[in-house]
């Protein structure tokens, strides 16, 4: 049974790419960032975060690098690659197109 609030894959990819476009982060920081940006609305389960990151890495859109955190722990930091940047633009455009279309349908009668 899928949770209604679970963000579907495409949108999660989009968000992750966007977050990493701003600065390289490790998984934990990404999960915090996701929460802080979107508030409680977009609850990405922490379990589905890592497979999503893994997928993006395998696609070559993000790349991981082991570095020290500010409190001297080893963590895998992800950053956007150049193909990732292109993918982000593509996904953002796609999202814009779809969300406009959906909003259009939803607001049909009010308009």
């Amino acid at each position, binding site marked *: 049974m899928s949770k209604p609030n679970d963000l579907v894959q495409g949108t999660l990819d989009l968000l992750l790419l966007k977050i990493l476009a701003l600065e390289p982060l490790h998984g934990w920081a990404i999960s915090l960032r996701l929460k802080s940006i979107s508030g409680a609305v977009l609850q990405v389960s922490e379990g589905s975060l890592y497979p999503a990151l893994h997928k993006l890495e395998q*696609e*070559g859109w993000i790349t991981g690098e082991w570095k020290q955190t500010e409190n001297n722990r080893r963590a895998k930091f992800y950053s956007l690659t150049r193909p990732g940047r292109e993918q982000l633009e593509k996904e953002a455009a796609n999202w814009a197109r779809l969300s406009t279309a959906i909003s259009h349908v939803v607001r049909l009668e009010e308009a």
Partner: protein
Amino acid sequence: MRPQHWLYTIPLRLRSLFRRRDVEQELDEELQFHLEQKIEEGMANGLSEKEARNAAMRAMDGLEQRKEEMRDLRGIHWLTDLLDDAHYAMRSLRRTWGLTAFVVITLALGIGMSAAGFSMIDGLIFRPYAVPHPSSVVTLVSTTHDSSFDNFSYREYLDIRGNTKSYDGAIASGAIQGVGFSVESGATPRVRGGMLVSGNYFRVLGVDPQLGRGFRDDEDEVPGRNAVTVLGPDFWKHEFASDPSVVGRTIRLNGTEFTVIGVAPETFPGMLMFLRPDFYMPLAMARLFSVNPQKNFLEDRDDRELSVQARLNPGTTLQQAQNELAVLAKNFEREYPKLNRDRGAAVRTQFETRTREDYIEWKFIVIFAVLSLAVLLVACTNVAGLLLSRAQTRKREIAVRLALGAGRFRLIRMLLTESLLLACFGGLAGIAVGYGAIRFLQTFSVPSELPVTLPFQLDARVLLASLALSALSALFCGLAPALQSTRVDLVNGLKSADVDVPGRKRLWGRNALVVAQVSMSLMLLTASFLMMRGFHNGVAAATGFAKDHLLMARFDPRLLQYNPAQTQRFYKLLTERARATPGVQSAGLTQRPPLGLGAFDRLAFVPDGFQMPRDRENYTATMDTVDEGFFPTMGIAILRGRGFQASDTADAPRVAVVNEQFAKHYWPGTDAVGKHIRLESASGTSVEVVGVAQTVTYRETTEKPTDFVYLPLAQHPIARMLLLLRSSGDPRQLIEPLKDVVRALDANLPISETRTYEDVYRYNAVEGPGVGVELVGCMGAVGLLLAIAGLYGLVAYNVSRRTREIGIRMALGAGPSDVLRLVMGKGLALVGMGTVIGLAMGCALEQLMNFMLFNAGGVDVVAYVIVVPSMFLVTMLAAYVPARRASRIAPTQALRYE
């Protein structure tokens, strides 16, 4: 996908494939880090450690599950699919291991034969010169009315070098010649192969010595000034044990001290195909190594002994170089009308040089290439046929897979993976077969003191070609069956496994396969049979002289600076004393015995009273210089007139002996004895023909009868001669007595090529060419084997497919003989058709072979009388076995057969 994408993904995939453990560990570490952070957060919010840990684990939705999910994501689907396919293919291949083994062996033979063939072709024709930018190196040749590949003289070379603009340099080199080599001045010199080259040789070729330096351009300017030498890599290794201090040392070549200035690199075996020079000397030192004392090599414009090669300028086309050289040749002709009459010049590429029509190897290669391709083709059709049959029997399995939703593409890929795997195995085994064949070719050691090497080797080029062949054959063998069997009608496929829906077209294809196979094999067999017969006939006919009880030894007194008079006296004494040695029945001298090593000289002459055509000055024929003992010792019969006598001295009237072919050619119908020929031109020295010798084979056992002239040594002095001793016992026992004789005459004179004539003959006339003949014979046998197996497989398959039909027929009253007739009839028709086509192809090939090799003339009926019926018989047998099995099927069993 953009290429830069791969930049990131490929290393990742490789890593997940090969560093699986590292990847897993990092995954653990990453998730662990997250959990710890989460727990810290939970504890900061007032939870106990245990509560925080539980909450963290809950948030993760099961750690192991996530890890599994991530493993799946690692995106090596295409690879895992491929591995799956390969795994599946392996399983199904193992299930039918008999068939697999057969297919692999078949392919191995086909690919191996082709690899061996290719290595031969590559070695003899395609392998580029071992220098940088080999394709810009061209060969300049002097052309005459009867030779399109003549050499240039030293003076001509200098003119070419000085007056052409097309090249980055033109180099000249002499032939590899025997040179007396010793390190100490007192030691007996040994004969080694040296080569005279121009000073710019190494510079123009772009070859950097591995030690010391190459020649300088100015080192061939002043005759006799620069006694320097560059060693060949093999010679350096064997003679000096790779001692680097050799540079700067002096060695003695033909008695003169030479300073070693460098060693050629390992990568440069020289520019010749079979011979690797032991050392190089500058052209200006030529006087020391002159072969022809009557000529002044450095001055005479008609002493044409140099092969000239040049490196084309980057911007110059072959045509431009050609035109420039043609103009130069015209100038030569104008300035030296006597010496350069009708002489042109041409620029030839490496390919043209190697395929010049007077190389026998070239013709042999064409036949060999055609045949080895034919073997591969037969092998491939065979395998395709087998896979096709197999695909038929797997129809049900494929139908099930299709019904379960496998895509057609996926299935084709799966089937192709199978044939690719087969081809891989076949290719690997084929390389082994090819390697064996090449090793076999290499085992033939040439009995010569010159450094002869056969250029066959299994190098990267051959391997690459074999792999390409494997891949191609996989595609060829696998694609048709894959396409066909996945075009299964689902319902029919599931309903009954092996009942073929009658399809004329499909049957037609398979029948065509059998016909093609039978005809190909027949052609192969005919060809190999013809070749063997032609060869053995040639060997049998090559008697005409006695091959046994003959010892040979080569001498060259020039190595010790003998003058012509000394040389004459030496040979006179040598033969006299040799004849007096116990165990020697007779002794004779020759430049080169028939079917021995090396090339005969050519004699230019005009038969007296002959009106020469306007465009030519003389005729030429191969010739030998012999003494009076040669004919009796060699056992060549004098048919009319006399042989040479001791009285044919330098002061006596000039005489010659011609062979029967020569006599028939120039004086048909009349006796040649008493006729005269003039040497060089109509105004040249007159020589009387005093005898006609029996025509023998001179260069190879399969040659056509050739014109041949003998001149007496006393009237035509040659320094480098071969002594022939006819022994009463084992000729080898004469070696020591002979050495004593020579030592008594001159202790410093080297003896070379001391061996029995039989050894040389066996190598040169029997084993050498025999290798090729045996190979072709092998291919014929392999072809036949393949055809039999193919036919058997096909008929057997046909029978198994028609088992139900046969059962019905038998239930309806047909007897075993009817069934036999039914099954055999089809096979008979196919074999008949294949035989007819194969016969036609065999005839065509025979014409080609006659044209190129044997000139036996006409069609060799015996070959067909033997080959065709035996082929027919054997293939029918292949059809009979399964047919008989079919006729014994019990009707009930057949009807139940599924």
